[in-house]
């Protein structure tokens, strides 16, 4: 049930069409023009105004031969977790789960408390700086999109899985643009079946380390509505090996708070007892 992404990194050619298509559709500003010298990655991470990010991993033959013989590319995105830390943390209900089972931030509700930011075990969501405007880039002749996120400075931003497009029957911009169909959009269960078959196929072809990330997970975060086919360990792609759902820490937290309070209260009663009689 629900719609999501299957990102098959073995089909990615690192063209970054997804990044641009996303920014175009969502009218997101650029994050500046800094040359990182980290392979072909100059945007480096997902952020408040970068909702797709292509990672580039150059892998040498071995310790002694720096010749690159494998160049991994992977288009990262919000995972739209089954159990979403950001959604649970959000105190206003601005972050909601929509009818497509995707995690959506309502820009008109979010008040920028920032609690979702540290609550995402994947480091996806972040706060959009104030006056961070595409208007500084594009003609202000009204031809830009009035729903543009840049009008939402001070609130949290992340992939909406193109909720607005889905509502009118369009595929998300990144999946539609992806020339090699490395990003596939559709019903999550169907995508998972496809992905499992794909892994078998690749392993049969001898593709080293082909694995799924975010499918049949045992972590508290559960399966991901945006999951990935990787050919190396998750950390190589800057993904957590075992993400933990923050809210699982609430019970022990409340408990120890209660115990501490109780203990101190008892101590207090003890100390202040036998006061009357002099």
């Amino acid at each position, binding site marked *: 049930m629900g719609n999501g992404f299957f990102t098959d990194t073995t*089909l990615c*050619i*690192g*063209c*970054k*069409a997804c*990044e*641009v298509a996303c*920014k*175009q559709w969502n009218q997101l*500003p*650029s*994050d*500046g*023009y*800094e*040359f*990182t*010298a980290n*392979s*072909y990655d*100059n*945007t480096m991470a997902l952020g408040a105004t970068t909702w797709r990010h292509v990672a580039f991993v*150059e892998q*040498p*033959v071995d310790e002694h*031969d*720096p*010749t*690159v*013989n*494998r*160049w991994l*590319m992977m288009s990262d995105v919000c995972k739209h977790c089954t159990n979403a830390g950001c959604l649970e943390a959000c105190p206003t209900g601005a972050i909601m789960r929509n009818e497509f089972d995707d995690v959506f931030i309502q820009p008109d509700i979010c008040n920028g408390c920032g609690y979702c930011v540290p609550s995402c075990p994947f480091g996806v969501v972040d706060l959009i700086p104030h006056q961070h405007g*595409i208007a500084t*880039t594009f*003609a202000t*002749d009204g031809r830009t999109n009035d729903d543009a996120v840049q009008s939402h400075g001070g609130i949290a931003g992340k992939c909406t899985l193109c909720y607005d497009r889905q509502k009118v029957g369009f595929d998300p911009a990144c999946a539609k643009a992806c*020339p*090699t*169909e490395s990003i596939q959009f559709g019903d999550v269960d169907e995508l998972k079946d496809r992905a499992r078959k794909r892994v078998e196929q690749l392993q049969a072809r001898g593709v080293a380390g082909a694995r799924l990330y975010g499918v049949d997970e045992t972590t508290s975060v559960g399966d991901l509505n945006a999951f990935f086919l990787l050919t190396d360990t998750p950390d190589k792609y800057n993904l957590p090996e075992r993400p933990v759902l923050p809210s699982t820490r609430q019970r022990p937290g409340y408990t120890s708070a209660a115990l501490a309070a109780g203990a101190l209260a008892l101590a207090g009663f003890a100390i202040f007892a036998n006061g009357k009689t002099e």
Partner: protein
Amino acid sequence: MPGLGTTFGRGGATTFVQDLENADCILIEGSNFAECHPVAFRFVMKAKERGATIIHVDPRFTRTSAVADIYAPIRSGSDIVFLGALISHVLESGKYFREYVDAFTNADYLVREDFKDTEDLDGIFSGWEAGENLNDSSILNAGTTNSGDASAIDGNKHSAYNRETWAFELEEVPRYDGNGTVKVPKRDPSQQNPRCVINVLKRHFARYTPEMVEDVCGTPREKFFQIAEALTKNSGRERTTAFAYAVGWTQHSVGVQYIRTAAILQTLLGNMGRPGGGIMALRGHANIQGATDIPTLFDLLPGYMPMPAVARKEQTLAEYLGTNTKPTGWWANTPKYFISLLKAWYGEHATAENDFCYDYLPQLTGNHSMMSTTIAMKDDEVEGYFVIGQNPSASGMNGELTSDAFEHLKWMVNIDAYETETASFWKREGTDPTTVATECFYLPSAVVLEKEGTMVNTNRMLQWHDKAIEPPGDTVTDAWIFYTLGKMFKAHYADSTDPKDRPIQHMTWDYEHPDAHERAKGEPSIHRIMKEINGYSVADGTQLKTFTELKDDGSTACGAWIYTGVAPDDTKLMSRNRKADDWVSLEWGFSWPANRRILYNRASADAAGKPWSERKKYIWWDEAQAKWTGVDVPDFPVGKAPNTPAKPGASGMDAHGGASPFMLNLDGQAQLFTAGLLKDGPMPTHYEAVASPVKNALYGQQNNPVAMEWRRSDNAYNGTDNPDYPYVLTSYRVTEMSGIMTRYIPWLAELQPAAFAELDPELAVEKHIRNGDWVTISTALGEIEARALVSGRLQPLRLGKGRRIHQIGIPYNYGTMGHATGDSPSNLIPFVMDPNVSIHEAKSGTCNIRLGRRPTRTRTVVDEAVPQHKPEGQPSLHGAQRDTPGA
């Protein structure tokens, strides 16, 4: 591209991108397919998923290599050795497609006795006429059809070949109608004669061995054998291999011969004209194919007819038709196409009596290509320059010479959507605008969404695009600008009696827009222009449905014969067809000629007209209907039976038999050996780039002996094995950027925000360069700075004699304007010109690299040396001043 044209008859890509999916093997060389044509690359990925072997041969491990099955490193500029060795391999091992070669090529023709090969003359063919190899802008460019011989007519002293020995031995045979005899090439079906083309070819490529590949290309032997194996295994009746190339093959002083080598190899493997086969030429600009078909090129008229040239003695219409009408093959129709063109241009004024205004056409008196013209500018021979949607100062060669040349102009018109380095050349670093006299104009032009019209994609497909929005501000379409200027000139010259003004007076120019709103703005009707291009009957203006309707009597007018049929009537526009299927999609757009998608597709059937195999069935002879049929439009006379005998002495197509798929060639066969069609040899020969780190290991002749150079202090060359410039320099573009069209777009600029130079870790350590450091790259011409991108994707190559070569790669996307900026390699790359198509050599050169930024460019040095506006031979701004012998 004559590499293809001289072999198969047409210069266009022989297949279409969707068909790559059907290939069993794809060799990508001279192209960074995945990065530069990502969307077309999806068909390569599909082929891969279907089990095809993807091979990438490239100086750098790129995003294409990352998904290829086999990646082979190669030293930039050595591809002919690699491909030549493959040719030698298939010939020696006999693994070529024998039936195909026997049926469809000139393999069994006998080459003239007096022909001398590079084998005999140490890298030079017979007919060499030595001279100064300097370009004096007076070499006639033959264009893409076989026309006159430069060396024969050119009074100036430059090296050139007399190509008469590059021909076949002729024999007399009786004419088909019995009256007398006719001379035709002599053949030896047994192919035993050592002078048989196939044997000449074998000898020519004999020294192109796997060892040589290792020594010259630096490509490991096992990689070579792996690739040879994949190619031969995936060619033949049941399987096909496709080649894909781009400017990585063309931008060399031997560029055309790179493609020729590939053409020969694909012909020997029998992959031409077949599904999943062919040669995919990946062009770089949205309408680059269209701008060749309907050229804004000095040597061509629409439909690949050459411009009249003094050199070819084409003073009169008769003379012109004399040189350009071929006795046999499709080009026998030249008069129909040419006269229809004149009718289209000069309407009722073009009559049989006045040779259809033939003398209105200007005559070529030399090479007026971009580089020659730029030099002429610098030398104060040009007053005014129109630059339309181009940016030579940043994207050309020798950017400094180029910008410098602009200072010698009286006026310059730039038509673009953004400010370019070219438009504001007078503001560039180190230049004081108050010393620049050039009067400059800028016209804001509409981008694609703001106008309608036709673009021709890389596989010759015309696609109409509708107008979506109004252009902003004063922005106008390019059409508006040209149309309006035309009207202004017509008005100005209206009552002139000077004969030189008649072409303007008589030029047909009625493109008034039917729509009142557009007419009010003065926009011309693109539809009416397209109608003229398509062609119509002069009598009643009815549009023509195919170019076979064209006449040479002035009764038809046609702007570009190859497009005829795109607008068959007033209401229909085939280029606007938008019905696709899952393969050939004949009803999506319109592919010239006559909507054919795979060229020479007659070759997808054997000599007898039967498909080579069920699996690779495409076009075949249907006995029952007595016509060619299949999934595409047959690229052959549809009713001509496969067993039709050739008629010696007959004219045009009748001279061809039913088994001659290459209709535009004289004999209808693929040319393994081209009889004098190219200026630098009938067979490809490896020459080192003009700037090369090594001596030519195959021959004494170092460079292309007829490549054109400008040896002057503002165009200094590194030369051969120059210790000051020990590293190979290559240039390219990245996915995220094109040029000025992307640098202003923040979404793209942030993805590749700065100019960088890629180098291998070993060299980096040697030069104490850290990843991300500023580095300065230098050639004899000058220096540029960039950020170092140290990566194992580049690897040192081990050449012969234990020579270790490092390659440095620099993207061509940058300039000083826009959000993503940096130095352009154009300031490192001197003018050098391939003799056939006047293309430059941007893909392989030499350079040096050092840690740190370059000094700021300052003009003072030069100002002392050179007073402003003094023409010829002044030191370039920052280029070294020493001349280096080129060849």
